[in-house]
């Protein structure tokens, strides 16, 4: 056991004050906490243990005003042996008697029994061997491990899953996957659009950081989230009239969004969703920004972008294309005409690299925008592309597909750390593009006023010791790549020339529009910014997230309701027991490398059933440990309330999945009393516990019932929280307890169970326990 301080307190207030200071844990009987400390299972070891047992007056059992009141420090053995409880609140006496062993019942208290840590052998493995989801880690090891004692009614989210966490937009990926598994594509669509209004786009172009974060990567192949997203994204676009609806009510506020790239479109969507009148200004002919002009059609068909813009138009968003802010309309004017303005103008400007002969090269983005014209007369030429990001790969692949004889791509980064996605790099190499990692630009080899090649110098590291971008070179190692055409796809810059000198908008240290971290608000009231203009060149999904942030900030600025957040909070997590056995991830059907074109998409969208099948591989990472308390279901069946030093909670409100606890209590919140209303005449209750051994074991399943009045049935050890079997209660309503009605209630109690294969047996036990407990109570 690690050392810790131990202190006795005389009052609950004194304990709460200490606990509120952090790194402290409260103990009553100590039968759970001390074992946990001894085994070092908690994610954070307490510096101080606060002993409540020295608080006087918290161990009592008394009936007052028709309510049974039990002090939180009352020992379980006293509850089990109390004649009043045995007679009138039978289920609680039986539950208290069923806990562990006589010694533990003599030490353990009712408050402590309700507050136990999760009972899961991964959680409880000493020395914190498994940094599980319930400890703040990313995985529930029981999901793919040994889960014979785990939940049969799904899991609970303890915190964000790694896929969601790694998604810049914070998409609830497991949430919409669960809806897909349930066959509810519309609900899945609405779920993904809570964070991302254009999944058809991101499915195709996103770097999908979620993939590498997927917990399945630890054991086999990560879930192909992008493939599922693509099927859902296309479904959304195919049914855009269902998902891009005008707002139910107008707020009367107006917003101008400058730029129609991913950030601009995202901001426009969320602003319009909130009921504001939205006008998008864009200097180009078509909406979509980089999506439309920079990303090649083989990756993102232009039609997809057009359909997204059209869907937004259908919502009521007005697009004013060919309108350049700063030239056609001044920023000041926008501010005057609109209640809020959001700049999402992107990063289109060519950087100056500073090498000799740079003027003889072509800017990669210009190449992509004007690609067909640029290639005139260059078919059969040798091309060098510089840069290591997705734009560079796009440029290289496009050039090759349009007929370049050879394409070489040189970049500063070592191979494993190129910013381009692994899939894009693989695609490039499959098509014959030569990748030259760890090379920097030295000078253009010029002959007769034309570029004839590029001298490269060895890049030792693109970053300095602090991790900042600051390339280090070995100038003694140089090489010349002989080409006629050089496409510079490095470091696009943000062009803020549309802001006049008089229009004062604070820039940050990088010369970008400075915005508040949480709201995207710029330095002028009502002005917001999003996307590359605030961050420099970044990802599409980052832009979408940024756009959402700015829209949210503007909402708050308008004093409007913030748009709904993640609707998955509190949901029961489910998974597909068979699906998770499938180790191989979905693969996209792609055209042969030799047949690929620049104007047609390389791959096909997976069919909906394929996507649903892949969604069934999702582990839906949460915590699947069961609540171990034996007294909790009994108290739930008896309709108890919990009195803490801060509030009064219904017994079922008490339980929540937290790291690492089982209750919703704040760190400085202490259970003081348990109150149970006196049962109505004729009401009887019973508790039954099934464990492998007659003593010491935790429940495999427990069941508490109350009959004779409004029936209540609660199962223990079958879910992360005590499980009220509402189906059983409904089945029993108004009926006598007989063999038949009790059996029917048992069947109803387990409807909706989604067990792990190894825990399936619990269903049979649960329904039998419900039946037997009802019959016992009904006698």
């Amino acid at each position: 056991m690690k050392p810790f301080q131990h202190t006795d307190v005389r009052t609950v207030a004194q304990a709460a004050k200490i606990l509120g200071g952090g790194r402290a844990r409260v103990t009553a009987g100590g039968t759970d906490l001390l074992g946990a400390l001894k085994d070092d299972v908690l994610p954070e070891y307490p510096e101080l243990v606060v002993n409540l047992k020295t608080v006087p007056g918290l161990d009592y059992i008394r009936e007052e005003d028709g309510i049974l009141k039990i002090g939180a420090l009352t020992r379980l053995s006293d509850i089990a042996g109390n004649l009043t409880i045995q007679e009138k609140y039978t289920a609680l006496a039986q539950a208290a008697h069923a806990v562990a062993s006589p010694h533990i019942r003599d030490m353990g208290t009712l408050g402590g029994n309700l507050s136990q840590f999760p009972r899961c052998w991964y959680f409880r493995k000493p020395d914190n061997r498994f940094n599980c989801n319930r400890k703040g880690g990313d995985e529930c090891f029981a999901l793919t491990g040994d889960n014979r004692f785990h939940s049969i009614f799904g899991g609970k989210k303890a915190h964000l899953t790694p896929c969601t966490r790694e998604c810049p937009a914070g998409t609830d990926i497991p949430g919409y996957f669960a809806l897909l598994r349930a066959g509810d594509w519309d609900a899945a669509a609405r779920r993904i659009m809570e964070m991302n209004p254009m999944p058809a786009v991101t499915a195709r172009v996103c770097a999908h950081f979620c993939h590498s974060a997927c917990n399945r990567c630890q054991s086999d192949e990560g879930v192909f989230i992008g493939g599922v997203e693509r099927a859902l994204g296309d479904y959304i676009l195919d049914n855009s009239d269902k998902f891009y609806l005008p707002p139910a009510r107008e707020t009367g506020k107006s917003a101008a969004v400058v730029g129609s790239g991913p950030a601009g479109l995202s901001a426009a969507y969320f602003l319009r969703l909130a009921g504001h009148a939205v006008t998008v200004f864009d200097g180009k002919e078509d909406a979509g920004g980089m999506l439309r002009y920079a990303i090649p059609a083989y990756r993102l068909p232009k039609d997809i972008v057009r359909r997204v813009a059209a869907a937004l138009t259908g919502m009521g968003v007005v697009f004013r294309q060919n309108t350049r802010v700063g030239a056609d309309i001044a920023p000041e004017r926008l501010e005057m005409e609109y209640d809020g303005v959001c700049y999402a103008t992107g990063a289109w400007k060519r950087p100056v690299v500073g090498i000799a002969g740079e003027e003889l090269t072509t800017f990669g983005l210009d190449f992509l925008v004007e690609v067909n014209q640029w290639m005139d007369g260059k078919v059969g030429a040798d091309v060098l592309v510089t840069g290591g990001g997705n734009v560079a790969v796009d440029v290289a692949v496009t050039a090759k597909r349009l007929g370049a004889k050879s394409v070489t791509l040189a970049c500063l980064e070592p191979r494993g750390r190129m910013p381009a996605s692994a899939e894009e790099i693989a695609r490039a190499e499959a098509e014959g593009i030569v990748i030259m990692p760890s090379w920097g630009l030295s000078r253009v080899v010029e002959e007769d006023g034309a570029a004839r090649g590029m001298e490269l110098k060895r890049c030792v590291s693109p970053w300095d010791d602090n991790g900042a971008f600051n390339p280090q070179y070995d100038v003694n190692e140089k090489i010349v790549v002989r080409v006629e055409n050089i496409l510079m796809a490095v470091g696009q810059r943000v062009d803020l020339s549309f802001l006049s000198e008089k229009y004062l908008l604070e820039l940050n240290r990088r010369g970008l529009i400075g915005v508040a971290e949480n709201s995207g608000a710029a330095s002028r009231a009502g002005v917001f910014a999003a996307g590359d203009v605030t961050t420099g060149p970044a990802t599409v999904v980052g832009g979408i997230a940024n756009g959402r942030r700015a829209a949210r900030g503007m909402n708050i600025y308008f004093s409007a309701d913030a748009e709904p957040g993640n609707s998955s909070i509190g949901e029961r997590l489910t998974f597909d027991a068979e699906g998770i056995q499938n180790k191989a991830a979905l693969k996209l059907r792609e055209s042969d490398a030799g047949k690929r074109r620049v104007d047609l998409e390389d791959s096909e969208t997976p069919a909906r059933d394929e996507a649903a099948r892949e969604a069934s591989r999702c582990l839906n990472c949460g915590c699947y440990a069961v609540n171990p308390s034996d007294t909790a279901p009994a108290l739930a069946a008896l309709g108890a309330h919990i009195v803490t030093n801060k509030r009064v909670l219904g017994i079922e409100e008490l339980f929540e999945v937290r790291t690492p606890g089982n209750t919703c209590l704040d760190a400085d919140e202490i259970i003081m009393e348990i109150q149970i209303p006196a049962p109505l005449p004729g009401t009887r209750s019973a508790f039954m516990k099934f464990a492998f051994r007659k003593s010491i074991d935790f429940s495999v399943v427990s069941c508490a019932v109350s009959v004779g009045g409004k029936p209540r049935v609660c199962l223990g050890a079958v879910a992360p929280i005590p499980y009220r079997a509402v189906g059983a209660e409904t089945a029993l309503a108004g009926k006598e307890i007989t063999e038949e009605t009790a059996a029917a209630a048992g069947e109803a109690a387990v409807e909706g169970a989604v067990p792990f294969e190894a825990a399936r047996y619990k269903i049979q036990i649960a329904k039998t326990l419900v039946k037997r407990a009802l019959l016992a109570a009904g006698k």
Partner: protein
Amino acid sequence: MADLAGVNGQREQFRVVGQRNLPGKLSYALATGVAKFGIDYVLPDMLHAKFLRSPYANARVKSVDIAKAKDIPGVADIVTWEDEDIKALNNFGESNDSRRPWLDNIADQEGAEVAVIVVAESEDICEEALRLLDVEWEVLPHVVNLLEGRKEDAPVIRPQVRDAPMFGAPSAGGPTNPPKRGNVAYANMTSGDMDAGFAAADHIIEYDLYMPAFASLLPNPSGSVAWWFDDPYYSEGGKSLHIEGAVKDKNAISMMYRLPPEKTVQEGLFMGGKYCDWGRRKSQEITPLLAKRTGRPVRCVNTREEMFDVIMKQRYIHLKVGFTDDGLITAVDDFSIADGGAWGSSSFGNVGDMTLGPYNTLKCHNINQHMEIVDSNRYLMYISGQHCPFNWDSITVALHMIAEKLGKDPIDIARLNLHGPTSKDDPDPVPSFEACVKKGKDLMNWNWHPSGTKKLPDGRYHGMSFRYQMCPRHSFSSYSCKLEFRDGEVHMPTQGPLFGVYAVECNAMVVAEELGLEYDDVKIDFDYREPFTPLGGGSDGTTASAWAMKECANILKKQILEAAIEYAENPPMPGAVSPQPGPFKGLTADDLDIIGGRVVLKSDPSQGVPIREAAFTSELLAITDFDSQGVPVREAAQKNLFATFYGHPPLSLWATGEMGKRLDTMNTAYCEVAVDIEMGEVEILRFGVAADPGKVMRPISLESQIDQVMFFSQGCQLLEDFVFDERTGVKLNNNMIEYKKPCILDVPRVDREFLETRAGNAAYGANGISHSLANTHLVIIAIHNAIGVWVDPPATPDKILKALGKA
């Protein structure tokens, strides 16, 4: 009765042997908590030691930086595997061709001691120092699932060669063992003509059975305390070592540290080991070195979690059995997959037990056995674990299945297939078996019914089962016995420690029996310097050591009688204050006996003297006092006598290669269960044991052993199992909540009946019994008899429900 040689000839009347309620010599200490185990030794100025333990199932420590750990106040020493002191330590674990260093940088089980030992002022400081070690691990592939580990594409987890297993060499004329491949070593044995055997069969059945790995009890965490001291008696040649809680035999530590035995002291009598736990943990071996390095006492004790090392290994068996219409087995083809154990582990319990198994009790000669021994990372101990007694369950299941198929009582099928006392060709079963069955049937009200046909009044299904085994003869150990007749009392000097085997009481009873004394008259002197220790294979050792001590007692008896005659021939001079000699003048020792603590005439037992007055010498009269006139009072001196014996009982069948092909004493076990098919719950209504130990020597020991072994059987068949996280190889249930050893409330009634056919080869025709009653399928068969489906042990409710199609 067995034809026993020497003074171990038959005794018809017993006064002491077989008596109930004789107190255990160490029971008081155990019952009151006075008994000191290794963990209980706390010395002034004592340091504590702990090992680095692997969080991985298979891993190599590439490097370790101890700098931060060493700087912690209170850290006295940090030793790594690269230290010369460590390299110089002997590893006496079995090697199987690849002996490992005593400590190295490879951990092939999660929780294994590896690479570093920390010594500090407290265990907390040790733990803190271990946390601050900067360890670079190389995690290696692991195997905790034998069925995966035996596959050709499985990662090979260790280079150990097992082409020549210690036990189970190929039988003469049988196929040779193939070389080890991947993780799998092979052992094959063949006898008879398999083709002819199956051709003679009217029926052939094939089935799989599984024997789970399980642990035995953990009475006390293992560990040791050691310190070095100046011994005034052995002062030359350096210090002597005192070690407590180390091992059942301190000589192992003497050997390890190259000390003469007399310079190694272990006075404690309690070890706290596990069933058949012959291995030594590193915590029991390292403290002498650490104490030497630090110059202070050092204690190293394992935690209870660290003690969850498997004793009984996992095994999968596929059996193909041919039999005739009347149930006679004609051929057995046995294929099994066994856990190879820890790196360097014994192959005992894997290959060797095939030679000791049940097939030798069958009339059938056509037996084929193939075994795959799979290396694993399942955290096994060195030299521990055996499935020998459990191996019998393969044929037990066969007998039950044959009975089911033919609609006959399994006891009748067993009887038909069991050979007689002297060879596999004897037509009739051994008489001991018949006697046991008769007793057992009465005990159990045996009324066999086909599977799934009997319901109890409470709605549960009733099942019953039967099993036999021969009682083993472990009599190949020799014992160095010494008895002293000192100052008129008989002393039995005995070396500790004792680890739960109350053999010493049996020995004292035999000595009392032979010397005509009461049990309490035999004084047991526990002294680490004495060579006698009554251990060696549980109750088998008890009966064998008792045989040797019986020889020794009779040698002493003869000396006492001869001394009594000599005293009678040379009485003390008149006036001396001395006991009067007995009326033995002119007689020989053959004319005398010792009865009721008196040396008496055989011809007239009323004439004699108390034994304490029988042996005096008048050669030297000692002045012991002066009378009132100042005249010296002279007394004759007590004559002290010493008898020694070294040897073992005859007819050690297991040691002479007969391996159970001859049968003497047998035992039978029975089980009744009730199965709740709605919940999958099995209740053992009772176990029954009708056993023939040859001669019951100390009833309470025998009964306790049977209770214990049925407790084992219950545990492994209904509850116990080691659960691994297969992805990481980490064991998930190293505690008494998750590892489900039955609680006292779960333990069923055990009814026992004993026979005494006196057909064994040890003292009075006794035979060992101990773990021969352990089994993995007695309950499983009863469950099958109840519900008609097979469930692999442990038959937990989830498996029962699954077998019933309800999960």
